[in-house]
């Protein structure tokens, strides 16, 4: 198996999706490279979540091709689709934890489902270190989702998404609804896990700080297409009004300023 960094891990071509008469995507093209954190941004209702749901097979597609790990995902039968699904993890917006199971049991669900032969002791140990690895306190393991705060639910959801040691991670607005300190901690967590596990991350976000802090490249969704993919400086060079407004609006400028300020501090600290 070739695991070179940089070759495409997800490739979407000519994607068309719609809800009734309302077309969400039309002729959308996107490529995600192995080992990168790709941020996906766009105004509300431009179909960021729909794109993610189309890639992971939750959203019916009208036309187009989607390839993940070099294999087409559309129209595969049950077992083939399951084999592909094993290799990615998904974190939904609210965490989507199973409410009748504890946090540790939630982490065990994918393991039990795909590897029924694992013994209970090992399962418990795997759940334990995954819980701690995602930055949850050890006491959170036997708690039920209803007893957790929003940030802890997201961490628990991330632990479940990472249960199978996936190569590819889908995150749907992981920092939405978190306070700035928790959001920054979550960004760091994603970055460090990405480095440790060699993950590719498909990250939907509204959070400019997240984009600046951890994303290698950013894809911008507008006009039913991906209108630009690249690093933030590359995107800033584009003339599209939405991109300009997004990155050069008051919030965008503030995030840029913070980033530059931090870089300067690093430079002066290093010299």
């Amino acid at each position, binding site marked *: 198996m070739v695991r070179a960094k940089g070759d495409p891990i997800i490739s979407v071509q000519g994607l068309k999706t719609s809800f009734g008469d309302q077309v969400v995507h039309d002729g959308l093209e996107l490529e995600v490279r192995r080992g990168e954190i790709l941020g996906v941004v766009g105004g509300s209702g431009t179909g960021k979540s729909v794109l993610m749901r189309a890639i992971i097979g939750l959203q019916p597609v009208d036309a187009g091709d989607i390839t993940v790990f070099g294999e087409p995902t559309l129209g595969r039968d049950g077992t083939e689709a399951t084999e592909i699904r094993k290799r990615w993890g998904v974190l939904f917006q609210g965490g989507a934890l199973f409410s009748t199971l504890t946090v*540790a049991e939630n982490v065990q669900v994918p393991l039990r489902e795909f590897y029924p032969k694992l013994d209970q002791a090992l399962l418990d140990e795997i759940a334990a270190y995954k819980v701690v690895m995602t930055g949850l306190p050890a006491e959170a393991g036997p708690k039920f989702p209803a007893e957790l705060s929003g940030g802890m639910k997201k961490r628990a959801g991330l632990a479940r998404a990472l249960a199978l040691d996936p190569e590819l991670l889908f995150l749907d607005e992981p920092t939405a609804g978190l306070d700035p300190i928790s959001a920054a901690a979550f960004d760091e967590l994603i970055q460090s896990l990405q480095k440790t596990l060699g993950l590719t991350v498909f990250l939907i976000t509204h959070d400019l700080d997240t984009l600046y802090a951890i994303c290698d490249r950013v894809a911008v969704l507008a006009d039913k297409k991906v209108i630009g993919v690249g690093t933030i400086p590359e995107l800033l060079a584009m003339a599209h009004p939405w991109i300009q407004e997004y990155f050069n609006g008051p919030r965008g400028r503030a995030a840029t300023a913070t980033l530059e300020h931090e870089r300067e501090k690093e430079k002066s600290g290093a010299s």
Partner: protein
Amino acid sequence: MSAMADFSEDKNGALRFSGSLTLARLGDLPERLREFQGQASTLDLSGIEHIDTVGAWVVHRFAGQHDARVVGLDEDGAHLLDQVSKADEPVAVRPDYSSSFTRVLGEIGDAVTESGRTLYGLLGFLGATVIAFATIIRHPSRFRFNATVHRFEVVGVSALGIIGLMSFLIGIVIAQQGAVQLRQFGAEAFTINLVGRITLRELGVLMTAIMVAGRSGSAFAAQLGTMKLTEEIDAMRTIGVSPMEALVVPRTLAAVILMPLLGFYSSVVAIIGGGLLCWASLHIPPVTFIERIREVVPITDLYVGLIKAPVFGAIIGIAGCFQGMQVKADAEQVGLRTTAAVVQGIFLVIVLDAFFAVFFTWVGWI
């Protein structure tokens, strides 16, 4: 495909791992390592193809148990092993359970205090509803006419079809069963007494109450519960609108006013159903049937039904609204409270029905 994970023993107390130390290719490696009894001072991982966190965990655990050193990992692998070892903390998977005996005792205790609290809360809510009604009588301008009329439609008019069908069938069943049993004594004619009295006095109102509790009591609880969750009720309070007056009064009033109407309608339809069966199987013509009904059913039977109905309506309405207002925190509670509203409504209706039966016998309406 990469090779399965494996290990072999070396002469100088080193374990040499090979293959792919990943979840998918782990196989029986964890069990074999657990049963491994020999000495192992170093774990040589230079021969492996790939390692993920599960593989790193298995190695970390084994190294810890045998006090062994891990060698031969590349930089990424060493970093991974390091991260996994840092995450080695005891984490419980399930909450601690006490022994089943104390748990059963605890559950009984919880159930008792919970029912006590519910009864207390329900009494309090009854009081609050009465106060809200009193306030509206004093300030009629605060009465929400449109909301109430809308509830009338939802609780009453749209229930006519299902209640009619149910009552019609129950009338037929009573008449049919009555006819079969009474024929053994040559007393088929008394089927008319049976149908007339039981529907007007008991079943018409009781079955309607059960239907209204299932249709509307549950709807009240679900609506108010959802409004509580989305903070609509809090928003109302901050604007200065009393949820008791705006939400509870129209719903309870609709149930109180419509229960007697629906109960009477139900009794009449059941009598029609019974009459049709008598006509078809006992050959009693409808005119005779109606004449006999007027003779054998005392008017007090109608009064009994009509007196009970609004009380049942009030119970169903208040139980539904009360449970809805109890929703806190999460969406799961809406379901639980809705179920509780229906169960409580029907239970209280049947308990009160028993009291009414004793009371009306006592006053001589038999």
